[in-house]
């Protein structure tokens, strides 16, 4: 296991370097920040000074080398908009995003596994049809639509929940609910398909011949076998949330990394973009490695290969 993690980490490091280079150059293709940080009637001299100070007058390769050298010292540079170290800015926003993912994903898995499994147990039955329909609705509903309607209904009309912001656990209810919707919709479909395959396997018949109850057949025998594709898709969803739940963050005023990234692009705050991508990419790589480990835990055939 140790050597496996080392190997994966090394591969991930290569991806990471490629990614960071990509971000560095892509970001700079979007244009100069000077106009954004200076008044529209700023004089040419002021603009020149600004660029000089921020190092934007240097050739691109000089900037890149500077960036890479800084990276080695874990110095991602100063944020243009916040005038603070970019990494600090990012690390301050990231926990919220991580928390969102950490609360949302288990919920998504719980709902979709139970629903998908029950649907697969009697394919074509009423529950299956209903579950399919509702989950597809969930997968096809625009996030921000649900978010705003959620605020209007639950906060304004019913006064059950706060509209937005952070603080109490109740503040998390709407954002998490919105964030749960689409991944759950997709995952119910995946669970259903993979559980149908698992439930038609020969060992299910063995279990029935042993007198194992239907519930144990579905949730003990079939589930663990049907889990691999589910993990793959779920990890993709988790990566999506870790990469920033932009819309939820925007609507609910959640200080996460998604909105930070988008704002930073709008403001051409390159250092923050770089730091944010680096941090989320690291998190996604960790997720990927965890997924590989989960594979091995779930399926002994992988473990012993």
């Amino acid at each position, binding site marked *: 296991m140790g050597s496996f993690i080392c190997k994966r980490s090394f591969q991930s490091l290569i991806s990471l370097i490629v990614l960071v280079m990509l971000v560095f150059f892509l970001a700079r293709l979007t244009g100069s920040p000077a106009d954004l940080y200076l008044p529209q009637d700023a004089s040419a001299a002021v603009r020149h000074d600004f660029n000089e100070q921020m190092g934007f007058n240097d050739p691109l390769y000089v900037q890149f080398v500077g960036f890479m050298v800084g990276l080695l010292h874990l110095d991602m540079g100063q944020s243009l908009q916040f005038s603070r170290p970019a990494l600090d800015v990012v690390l301050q926003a990231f926990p919220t995003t991580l928390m969102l993912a950490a609360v949302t994903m288990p919920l998504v898995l719980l709902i979709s596994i139970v629903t998908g499994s029950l649907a697969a147990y009697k394919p074509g039955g009423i529950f299956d049809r209903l579950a399919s329909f509702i989950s597809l609705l969930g997968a096809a509903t625009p996030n921000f639509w649900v978010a705003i309607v959620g605020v209007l209904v639950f906060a304004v009309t019913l006064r059950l929940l706060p509209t937005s912001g952070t603080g109490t656990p109740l503040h998390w209810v709407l954002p998490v609910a919105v964030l749960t919707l689409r991944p759950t919709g997709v995952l119910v479909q995946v669970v259903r398909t993979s559980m149908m395959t698992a439930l038609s396997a*020969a060992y299910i*018949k*063995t279990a029935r011949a*042993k*007198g194992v109850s239907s519930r144990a057949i579905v949730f003990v025998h079939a589930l663990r*076998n049907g889990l691999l594709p589910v993990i793959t898709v779920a990890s993709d969803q988790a990566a999506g949330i870790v990469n920033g739940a932009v819309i939820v963050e925007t609507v609910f005023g959640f200080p996460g990394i998604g909105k930070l990234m988008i704002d930073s692009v709008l403001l051409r705050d390159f250092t923050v973009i770089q730091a944010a991508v680096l941090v989320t990419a690291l998190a996604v790589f960790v997720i990927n490695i965890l997924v590989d480990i989960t594979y091995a835990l779930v399926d*002994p055939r992988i473990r012993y290969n």
Partner: protein
Amino acid sequence: MSEQSLLQIRNLSIDFPSRAGTVHAVADVSWSVGRGETLAILGESGSGKSVSASAVLDLVDTPPAVIANGEILYRGRDLLKATRGERRAINGRKISMIFQDPLAALNPVYPVGWQIAETLRVHGVDKATAHARVIDLLKKVGIDDPERRAKQYPHQFSGGQRQRIMIASAIALEPELLIADEPTSALDVTVQAQVLALLKELQAESGMGIVLITHDLAVVEKVADRVIVMQAGRVVEAGTATEIMNSPQHPYTRRLLDAMPGRHGFATELSASDGNVLLEVDKVSRIYGIEPGKIAEAGPKAIRAVDEASFTLRGGETLGIVGESGSGKSTLARMLLGLDHPTAGTIRFDGKDLNGMSAADTFKVRRRMQFVFQDPTASLNPRMTIEQIVSEPWAIHSDVLPKREWRAKAVDLLERVGLKADHIDRHPHQFSGGQRQRIAIARALALQPEVIVCDEAVSALDVSIQAQVIDLLKQLRSDLGLSYIFIAHDLALVRDFATDVIVMYRGQIVEQGHTQEVYSNPKHDYTKRLLIASMAHIPKAA
């Protein structure tokens, strides 16, 4: 008899309604089994033999199936009238079942000990007791080091061991009745014998009844007290094992008996050595885990799948390669087909080294050497029509036949292997196993090869079908002058087909020679064991 019978099936009918009409999978079937008795249900695929037995344990899915009629009486009580919960309480505790393919029938993601213990736990045994009992059971079915192995997973066991584990799980609660659905069909012959012996032993100990579902007469002969023969959902004959084996009444039973391999003479009609040498295998080794050419570095841990095998194949010859799982015969076949490459040694086709050949030359050789694989279901692409499958060789070797002639030629080939022209637009799943293998043979013939490598080509087929396919191969041999390399795990199979035989054991060729010589005078211990296991049941009368 009905007094003491444990389980009695009365006039059971199970239908599968479909748009094309209702299929009567089981029609008015009755049988019973008593304590200490072994009832064999004999029949081929699709005869309904499994369906009726599965119904006992509520394993038939309704829908799509409909239990149209009948009773399943367990100790006089009709199970069909019992609730799901009541039936679950009987399943595994009073009546248990083992299945054909233990790898598929065991849950791959749980330790085997856990799976055996589950039977106990679902019927109320506490965890600690269950664990102790698991160790006992594993010991009983002959698994060494049960404490350690209970924690292992199905894929870490051999086929025979897995079936033992299945048996351990099935007998965990000392059921009164064990239903064994083709328990040995997937196993090597020597292992088959061991598993059957184990079942007999357990029966003697506990006095349980056994219902043995099989297509294999040899198995019936070894263990059954009574036999019913099923065909197309109906019972066509019933009687004691001796009666059925010695004086079969129904023509179908007779046909079955007649089809048993090894009942005919040796393949002597062809003299072996008149052709020129087609294929020459010279000290071929395949060692996993090391680079080719560095054979000297192979340490003790290297896996020698094939170890210095040498033989030749001449035109018109049929070379049988016999060995059990892991003997290296499949690796050898893969190397012959170019799917794998020898670590050392050479394979020469028509005098040319296959390994040193250019891609273009290899491509040409492929035309002359075709193959038929073991599992026709798997070796035919399920999404292609028969036409596409049979024409594929022409698509790959595009200079052989112009496209417009493909269909006509494919029809020719189908007819040649005993299929009909209008089969050509169907898909493989619409055929029986035997028919599928004929399709595979038709495909192999498409390029008019000189050699056909048959890798366990009939092992998965019912006995009577086996005989038909082998007859077809014989026919083609005399019509087209083909040579065969016929790989099998059953010596009986090749006896009346191969002109020469090679016996492989743990990667090495332990015996080789003309068929008759090897069979009448086996030299190696292993050959002897193999002969005993697979030929013992051949009636002396033949």
